[in-house]
């Protein structure tokens, strides 16, 4: 526990809140601004001792950083221990909701296998605890020795923290950090740039639409903000007002809830979008404006229905019905995401789907698509540092046979996400991991710097722009950090200082406050001139006398919240605007043949993020491991979803161990035979098979990412392509007892043999 460098009784202005926190944490009284007692709505003054009685509940506002959605939460604490997470009813994104992953942040916080002290690989080759000073010095020395050969991998979502890492890289002299992010996020941005001229993930006004076609976007699974989209979906479909149609090869949770599901052949989503455009153009219901906007992007005629049917594997009447309903809808909307973007032609597919919105006139319309806008705090902290690199850049940095140099990995697990990078990591001189757990990457680290989890840290988050309204959310720590864990931003700053290239701020919080202060100044200076990119909307600074007051007011209020007025349409840049925008969008039909073994047992692999484990982050929480996947009902493991038809042919029964052989590796896992799987495809959730990551994740399930070929990229996006991979499926054996998948709805197989219909009764009213 830090002894703190502030003294009690000193004038408040000279002490940061974080220092106060240290003081009071040391004094055994955790009192924070922004916390309130439910029973009296009292904002406790830090100058007084806590009035929180032992055993009384204190609710503190915080921000969920389990994904990039930026849900605002309130955390129930009793005796300075976090007990329960609830959605903040006024939450900017979530409106009181929390998802399963969000709830489980508590188990991340209190995980028994957390890394809580700095460690360094000793002479014996084992990691040994050392002091922060020693650990930082070792790390900084390695970085300072060869900044050019240093690769930074930052796992934080876009926002201030990523900006700080960019600034770090620029100051210390390393190449820009690799931003470790989901492939479909990257591809989605690129597709949006091509179609709408803005490289941000678009905002969809789902709730006010009346007909939504989602091309692969798993909006109710684990994508962007399941809480926001869940609520929006509920509003869309309330009283059967609107419809959601899912165009996706896999029967995802979204497909399961959609009013219609079109299981297109994996990888043909872009072609499907073009074919749909063809039907819409031919229907005569499309406005002239939309038609010309679309045809400007796609001068070539779209494929005809027969070609679409052939390529996508969907009956003609279903496509025609979809086109007809879409054409007759008042506020149609097309979304794209997920597996549609993960093939090598992902960018083209995404652009083709997004461009449908131009055709339907949905861009910037109520119930349509909006620009994903933010306040630019990533840039504000980054200063003039170069933009972050896409994940695939890491593979390029690690390519070759030589020394991979120094690797700094912060809050990311690239070796779990792309196991193919392992050889590159082995050749690295020094691996420095800022992590709360011994995940697959941290296991290889030479220096481990323990970082704080969500509830322990000062938070400044720019939420995913799902609402199309910019925001910066700020929250103070909820509980005292465990052990010696530090804020990853503070770690970056300390590393820079130790390397002799100190950044202008002592800590992450000060950095954010400084950026806020600068924004205030810039906004003041800009006056009514809205064109200054450094300026905030003037309304946000109204009432603040000076920068310091603005900063304090903003942090007290929990951040800067934009209003609906700030929502705007994406701007398609003029074709001749002198930028790198292509005049014509790439044709999604031009697509490399799927790679992998051929033959009858050749299946298209669909890796997906389950709502349990996400990209693997949730794997260390017992609550999530034991949560039955809603579709397969599997707990505690990884499974392969096989279609009933394929299973019958291959003699596979639920639970049988199957081997999936790809181009670079093979995995063995139990099969789940489901009637909802598209024949010829096999779905496998990512997130299993951790080498460590704590006792609940260690060796649990298998890592499907091992099948990814690091040479395959999504064209034009710098992302690894995990779609369109073909695998051979072989049945190996009946499972041993310990191999059997843990199925919650165990009897459903038996229920199939029941000769009578089976469903809960409709009874009388209560």
């Amino acid at each position, binding site marked *: 526990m830090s002894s703190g460098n502030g003294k009690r009784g000193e004038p408040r202005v000279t002490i940061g809140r974080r220092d106060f926190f240290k003081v009071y944490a040391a004094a055994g009284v955790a009192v924070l601004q922004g916390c309130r007692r439910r029973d009296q709505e009292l904002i406790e003054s830090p100058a007084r001792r806590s009035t929180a009685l032992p055993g009384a509940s204190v609710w503190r506002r915080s921000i969920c950083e389990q994904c990039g959605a930026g849900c605002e939460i309130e955390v129930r604490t009793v005796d300075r221990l976090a007990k329960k997470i609830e959605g903040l009813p006024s939450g900017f994104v979530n409106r009181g909701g929390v998802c399963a992953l969000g709830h489980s942040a508590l188990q991340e916080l209190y995980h028994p296998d957390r890394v809580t002290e700095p460690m360094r690989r000793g002479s014996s080759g084992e990691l040994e605890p050392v002091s922060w000073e020693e650990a930082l010095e070792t790390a900084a020395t390695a970085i300072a020795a060869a900044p050019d050969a240093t690769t930074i991998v930052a796992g934080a979502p876009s926002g201030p923290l990523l900006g700080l890492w960019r600034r770090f890289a620029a100051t210390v002299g390393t190449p820009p950090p690799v931003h470790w992010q989901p492939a479909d996020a990257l591809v989605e941005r690129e597709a949006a740039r091509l179609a709408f001229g803005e490289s941000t993930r678009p905002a969809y006004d789902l709730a006010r639409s009346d007909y939504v076609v989602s091309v692969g976007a798993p909006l109710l699974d684990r994508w962007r903000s399941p809480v926001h989209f869940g609520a929006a979906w509920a509003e869309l479909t309330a009283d059967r007002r609107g419809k959601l149609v899912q165009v996706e090869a896999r029967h995802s949770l979204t497909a399961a809830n959609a009013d219609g599901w079109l299981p297109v052949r994996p990888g043909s989503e872009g072609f499907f979008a073009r074919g749909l455009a063809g039907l819409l153009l031919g229907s005569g219901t499309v406005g002239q404006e939309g038609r010309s906007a679309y045809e400007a992007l796609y001068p070539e005629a779209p494929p005809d229905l027969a070609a679409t049917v052939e390529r996508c594997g969907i009956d003609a009447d279903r496509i025609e019905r979809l086109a007809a309903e879409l054409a007759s809808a008042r506020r149609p909307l097309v979304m794209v995401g997920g597996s549609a973007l993960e093939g090598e032609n992902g960018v083209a597919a995404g652009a083709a789907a997004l461009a449908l919105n131009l055709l339907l006139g949905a861009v910037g319309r109520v119930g349509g698509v909006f620009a994903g806008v933010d306040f630019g705090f990533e840039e504000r902290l980054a200063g003039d540092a170069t933009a972050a690199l896409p994940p695939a850049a890491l593979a390029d940095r690690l390519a070759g046979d030589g020394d991979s140099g120094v690797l700094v990995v912060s809050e990311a697990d690239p070796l779990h996400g792309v196991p193919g990078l392992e050889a590159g990591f082995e050749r690295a001189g020094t691996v420095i991991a800022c992590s709360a757990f011994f995940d697959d990457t941290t296991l290889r680290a030479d220096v481990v710097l323990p970082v704080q989890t969500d509830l322990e840290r000062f938070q400044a988050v720019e939420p995913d722009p799902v609402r199309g309204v910019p925001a910066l959310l700020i929250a103070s720590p909820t509980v005292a950090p465990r052990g010696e864990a530090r804020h990853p931003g503070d770690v970056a700053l300390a590393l820079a200082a130790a390397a002799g290239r100190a950044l202008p701020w002592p800590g992450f919080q000060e950095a954010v406050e400084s950026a806020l202060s600068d924004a205030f100044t810039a906004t003041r200076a800009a006056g009514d001139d809205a064109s200054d990119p450094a300026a905030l909307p003037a309304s946000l600074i109204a009432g603040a006398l000076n920068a310091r007051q603005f900063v304090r007011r903003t942090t007290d209020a929990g951040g800067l919240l934009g209003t609906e007025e700030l929502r705007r349409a994406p701007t398609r840049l003029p074709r001749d605007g002198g930028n790198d925008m292509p005049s014509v969008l790439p044709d999604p039909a031009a697509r490399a043949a799927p790679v992998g073994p051929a033959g009858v047992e050749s299946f298209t692999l669909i890796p997906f993020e389950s709502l349990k484990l996400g990209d693997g982050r949730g794997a260390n929480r017992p609550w999530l491991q034991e949560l039955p996947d809603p579709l397969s009902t599997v707990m505690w493991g990884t499974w392969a979803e096989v279609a009933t038809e394929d299973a019958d042919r291959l003699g596979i029964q639920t639970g049988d161990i199957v081997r999936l052989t790809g181009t670079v590796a093979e995995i063995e896992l139990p099969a789940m035979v489901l009637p909802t799987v598209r024949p010829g495809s096999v779905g496998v959730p990512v997130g299993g098979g951790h080498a460590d990551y704590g006792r609940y994740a260690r060796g649990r399930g298998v890592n499907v990412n091992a099948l990814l070929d690091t040479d395959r990229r999504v064209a034009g996006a710098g992302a690894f392509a995990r779609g369109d991979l073909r695998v051979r499926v072989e049945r190996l054996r009946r499972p041993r007892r310990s191999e059997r998948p843990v199925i919650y709805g165990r*009897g459903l197989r038996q229920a199939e043999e029941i000769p009578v219909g089976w469903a809960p009764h409709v009874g009388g009213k209560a």
Partner: protein
Amino acid sequence: MTDRPQASARALDGELLGRLDRRRPGLLVGSLASGVLVLVFFYCWGYQIANGIGVTGINRPVFWGFYIINFVFWIGISHAGTLISAILRVTKAEWRRPVTRSAEAITLFALAIGGLFPLIHLGRVAIFYYMIPYPNSRMLWPNFRSPLVWDIAAITTYIIGSALYLFLPLIPDAAVMRDRAAAGLKKRFYAVLALGWRGTAQQWHSLEWGIRILAVAIIPVAVSVHTIVSWDFAMTQTPGWKSTIFGPYFVVGAIFSGIAVLMIAMALLRRGLALERFLTDRVFNNLGLLFVTMSLVWGYFTFAEHLTVWYSGDLFEKLVHHVLLHGDFAVPFWTMVVVNLVIPVAVLSFPRGRRPLPTALVGCGVLVGMWLERFLIVVPALSTPRLAYSIGDYMPSWVELGIMIGAVGVFACLYFTFTQLLPIVSVWEMREGWRHAVSGGESGQPSEAAPTSAAASPAAGGGAA
């Protein structure tokens, strides 16, 4: 004219006492071997108490497993004795005489073991006494609406009744043992058991009254016990259990399995203790007839039970029915039908089938079949709950198997020990029977209990001094 039966009765008397006196090393070996199983039993139970009830294979939704199956099974076995002996006593069937004691002992021991299983089954056995009605600091009495509390009432009554029903006729025989034993520990043991029995007219008179009343009283108790056991199931809403036929069905099944054990025990005793002269073919013939009758009645109930379900349109009942007859439980189900109905009827319908060896073998089959019947009542219904999502399965753990096998050992050990210590054939009742034969001999017709071979057999057994 009275001399010959008189003499042969004397001879038989001597022979019987001789048989009982003789120490059988087989019995000792049996006691020791079953003693090992007793250790297994207590080790497994101790292991379960130490580690938690989770060491079993029961789960959600199969919350009841081997322990409840064995509970019902052993309670069923317990109907061998008391009920059968009581019925035979009330109906004054002479051939009961060599049977009653061994049957009643079966009852008591089976009941003791059966009564243990609900305790083994408890999640928190340390506080089992919460079920017992007594004024307590919890200010709470048991919930008398629960069939489990009826169970406690019924089994308590039955076990006390059976123990007394075994004990009362044992007093005169304990006195026989006492008076024939040399002074010492053994004599004192029998003296305690005999309670000062002298065989006076008053004692005999009171005893006869007592036995008569107990025999009448124990029959409805026995019927109620297994009916109430059946109500543990039938009172629920669970498809497959909710059945009005369960009461009589269970009682019939209990008697059926009871006779099966009795047949096996008697065949073993007859062979092991060379009691051919007392447990005669005629006894086996009569019991065999009763046996096959029960088999038919059981078959009738089973048919009625499944016919009503099959005919009904109830979705959930039909599901249970389906998994039983055609699904995962079809093999045990049809096995049960074969060993409980087909084989007994095929074998026991013929006089030659009603001899000791075939009846004992059929009895073994019926024991398996009746165990399966309980298994098929408990598990399929639980594993197919109404909401299909929760359909489950069940596989017993080694602890459950250990306790199940161990319980057989406990039973065998108790039975061997009992046989070693006390007359397994009621001496005084045999004597009474021979006396009847002597007096009945006046009409020239030897009564049932009088061994038909007695007249022909030389008095080799030797008269007494």
